[in-house]
């Protein structure tokens, strides 16, 4: 037999239990879902970045590719993969490629440059004389040219993480290439639909208007940086269009005030003047006119 409880029996529990299946306030559920979706999106982006880095580690596919004139497919793939990156992710990619003994620029097949010795610090001749740098800094690229090309990509990356990006800003990455016109052609062309011919029928007009609205909405969604089939960032449920005005209370706010005579006192502690201080002060003030001759010797 189970032990008997000495606590009062609460009847409210049983009555509440069926009610708990549906949320008390649907707004709470919406808020929870909204944040859960944001987290889910973040996880998805992080996984995508990780996978991109893993593929870009083994880039380019052919060993005799040229960093100056990459093939259109390689360049396209690289550009696509790099879009969700933050600069820190790009640094991670360079680091990973260096560990694999490759040049940091993902479109370059050559191994990274070797420093002259295995010393930790190296002397380098620059325009402003000799500099001492870490060996690691030297052994990142295969050449200065590759470094320039790689950093040209890095400065275009958005600092903002991809899961909180808004708008179409930073969607295209430019490459420093010598065969630029080849890549231009490889870009997918966006087809614009021609204006629909107007008809006399009212219903057709209405349908066309709705369709135009749909088009506009999808255009806006693209502008916000969303892809089709992805979670919408504009959450209509959480933003309400009802406006309730806030009525001002009748009594105007009063500025705070302290009792005037005590607050001006120099020895006041939060408005209160200790008795010892008060007496002295009063006496001093009373005696003040005679004070100077009182203490004078006769």
């Amino acid at each position, binding site marked *: 037999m189970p032990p008997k409880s000495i606590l009062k029996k609460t009847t409210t529990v049983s009555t509440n239990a069926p009610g708990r299946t549906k949320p008390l306030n649907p707004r709470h559920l919406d808020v929870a879902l909204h944040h859960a979706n944001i987290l889910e999106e973040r996880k998805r982006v992080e996984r995508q970045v990780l996978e991109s880095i*893993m593929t870009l580690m083994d880039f380019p596919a052919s060993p005799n590719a040229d960093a100056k004139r990459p093939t259109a497919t390689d360049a396209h793939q690289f550009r696509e993969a790099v879009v969700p990156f933050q600069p820190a992710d790009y640094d991670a990619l360079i680091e*990973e490629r260096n560990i694999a003994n490759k040049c940091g620029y993902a479109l370059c097949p050559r191994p990274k440059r070797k420093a002259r010795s295995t010393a930790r610090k190296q002397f380098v001749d620059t325009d402003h004389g000799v500099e001492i740098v870490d060996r690691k800094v030297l052994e990142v690229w295969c050449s200065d040219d590759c470094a320039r090309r790689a950093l040209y990509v890095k400065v275009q990356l958005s600092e903002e993480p991809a899961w909180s990006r808004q708008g179409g800003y930073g969607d295209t990455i430019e490459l420093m290439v010598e065969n630029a016109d080849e890549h231009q052609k490889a870009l997918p062309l966006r087809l614009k639909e021609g204006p629909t011919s107007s008809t006399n029928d009212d219903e057709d007009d209405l349908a066309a208007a709705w369709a135009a609205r749909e088009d506009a909405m999808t255009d806006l969604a693209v502008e916000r940086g969303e892809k089709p089939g992805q979670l919408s960032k504009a959450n209509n449920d959480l933003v309400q269009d009802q406006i309730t005005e806030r009525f001002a209370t009748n009594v105007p706010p009063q500025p705070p005030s302290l009792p005037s005579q005590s607050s001006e006192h120099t020895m006041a502690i939060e408005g209160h003047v200790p008795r010892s201080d008060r007496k002295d002060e009063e006496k001093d003030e009373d005696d003040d006119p005679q004070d100077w001759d009182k203490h004078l010797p006769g």
Partner: protein
Amino acid sequence: MEGEKYQPSLIRMWRVWRTAKEMMNDRGYLVIEDDMTLSLEDFAQKYAREDGEPDRSRLNFSCQPSEEMLLKYTPAPTKKEPNPTPEIGTIWIEFNSDENVGLKQLRDYMGHLLNGSFYSGIMVTVKPMTGMAIRLLRGATGMSDGPKGGVEVFVEQDLLVNITKHELVPKHVLLSAEEKDQLLQRYRLKQTQLPRIQSTDPVAKYLGLRRGAVVKIIRKSETAGRYASYRWVI
């Protein structure tokens, strides 16, 4: 003097290796007693190269779980699965000699674990891994392409000293599924009502605790002699 006879790197490696063996023993794997008390001379004879540096590739070893450990890691039988299999198996400990460990090495290691059909693995690296490799590791425990039991990574420096032998570290004992149920019933708790311990806690890492497990922590107490508390791993 002993210190001058051997390279500092060899002495370091000897301590790391011994701690790794002790760690496996504390987790419940079968470890030969002599391995844990191997002296520096014997270690140098067995694993040093001619130039006095330790040969890390020869240090790798694998461990079998003991009967006791198998029982401990067996989940409680349910209606759906009346005969559950223990969630533990052979472990492979590898000492990586590369200066920098990135995604490439980690993926190679995972591939090796899968090929050798090891249940889980521990990689001991010279320096901390890159950030991306850690990210892969975090996601890999639930992924299909890694080994079932997951991969743990330790830096050599973390294993120089066996932290559980410090006087301020209380004894941690992992509870089996059955013991956990008894505990929860005895105190009429849900597991969420227990105090918690992070799985990144040094001792939790040492014992390889997984999320959801409960450890019993036995401390010395001035008034009660011994005091046991229980923590839920998150």
